[in-house]
């Protein structure tokens, strides 16, 4: 609380009164979000849960500056966002690596675009190497994406983000395509990275346990159009495997809230699986 910037803008990311809809030619517009607000403090990890189709990915695109909301706005360090911000990193569900670049080149991709901060060659090389070390892939620098497993590829995608030293990570179901063991490893990795660099993160997920393991705060989106219908603060220390039992009560509450949200809308298959 001592830094002046923190005093002026306690939130690194602030979304206020976001409304969003998609126009359909000939049909009524599909209102996805109405009046959604979120404040993200430095280093805070917020998990966003909600039924399928409620607008979680759309929300993340708005936060990333890739989509303009109908109403409301996004501020990063108090400054209105117009387009993607250099200190905000985005990770998608699929790793989205470029097949003609090696692992190392993929991680460096985006460091030398015109609207990114200028780096000299040495810093650039260090950033890439550090990011690769962070996800523990030093042994595979020259590999092409077609030679990587799903977990490795997603680690490369994470490293590509980290190389830009983001203050805020936006993750859209980043581990949902991975098997359970790999997913657990990736969750641990993400937790360590956000803790080490004090990176704030918005993590969209379908996995309640993932949210409970990683998040400082869980927000629940629901309704039609979507809005905030529940919020939980998780204060247990990391790693949380040992304190899983303490979180059971919160888990039951979230499941109940999701059940209610689902009764209002259409039943999402993914959540049913998570609830069972």
């Amino acid at each position, binding site marked *: 609380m001592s830094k002046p910037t923190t005093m002026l803008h306690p939130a690194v990311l602030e979304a206020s009164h976001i409304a969003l809809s998609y126009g359909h030619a000939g049909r009524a517009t599909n209102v996805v979000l109405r009046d959604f607000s979120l404040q993200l403090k430095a280093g805070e990890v917020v998990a966003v849960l909600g039924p399928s189709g409620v607008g979680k990915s759309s929300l993340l695109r708005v936060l990333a500056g*890739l989509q303009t909301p109908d109403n409301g706005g996004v501020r990063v360090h108090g400054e209105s966002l117009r387009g993607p911000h250099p200190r905000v990193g*985005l990770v998608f569900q699929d790793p989205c690596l*470029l*097949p*003609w670049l090696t692992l190392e080149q993929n991680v460096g*991709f*985006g460091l030398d*675009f015109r609207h990114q901060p200028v780096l000299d060659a040495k810093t650039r090389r260090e950033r890439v190497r550090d990011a690769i070390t962070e996800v523990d892939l030093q042994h595979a620098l020259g590999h*092409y994406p077609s030679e990587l497993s799903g977990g490795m590829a997603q680690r490369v995608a994470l490293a590509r983000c980290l190389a830009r030293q983001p203050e805020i990570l936006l993750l859209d179901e980043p581990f949902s395509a991975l098997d359970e063991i790999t997913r657990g490893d990736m969750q641990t990795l993400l937790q360590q990275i956000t803790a080490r660099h004090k990176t704030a993160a918005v993590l969209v997920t379908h996995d309640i346990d993932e949210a409970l393991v990683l998040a400082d705060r869980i927000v629940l989106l629901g309704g039609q159009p979507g809005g905030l219908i529940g919020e939980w603060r998780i204060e247990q220390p990391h790693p949380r495997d040992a304190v899983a039992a303490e979180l059971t009560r919160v888990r039951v509450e979230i499941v109940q809230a999701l059940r209610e949200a689902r009764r209002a809308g259409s039943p999402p298959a993914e959540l049913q699986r998570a609830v069972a």
Partner: protein
Amino acid sequence: MNATSIPLHRSSARIGLSLFGLFVLLVLWSLGIHVLGKSMPLAGALSPGDTFHSLYDLLARNELTRHTLTSLKRVMVSLLAALALGVPIGVAVGSSRALDSGTSGAFQFLRMISPLSWMPIAVMIFGIGDSPIYFLLTITAVWPIILNTSAGVRQLNPRWLLLARSLSATRGEILWRIVVPGILGHVLTGVRVAIGMIWILLIPCEMLGVSSGLGYFILDTRDRLAYSELMAAIVLIGALGFLLDALAQRLHRHWVPAGTD
């Protein structure tokens, strides 16, 4: 038999079979000359023996070098012109649905006209010399390049573009960092098809009003009644075409890592 020896074994078997095929071709050629020789005494000059003898002589006396180089230069210049024209058109057509629908009819129509039909008009416009040849070869090569480039743009992963946008890439950066490398495989496939078509069309094109190139050399041997040299030129044309295609294939394999297409 272990796992690594299988592909090795297969590839040597493939080379063996392909050599055997060439040998069969040689036998058929000799047989044909033998049959033809009964009614046509001159046919002996066309036999494989005489042909390879002449080919050796011509190569040893450096008489084909100038013609070969001229022909290869014409291939390269036309290919570059077709790339300079075809890639931007292909990118434009591939990225705009309206442009694609608007041009597809006209392109299919033009593509089906044998470039040789333009020959009189090309000579009328460009006169005699290299220019009409470049023109004809370029319009031959431009279609496979346009079509493959636009197909390549259409198969670009939209998520790559989203990724680039999330990094605030400019239009130029998206073009050079995503579109160009993303379509390279398709463009090189187009190049390979184009080289094949150019090479086939080059010979008749060189038979009109020029004084060098392998097509000209064929007419020249005919006028000099040097039939074994004519056959030697034919063998050389086949061999060079084969090498050009192999080279195009190599480029593709070298520049396009697996999984890009």
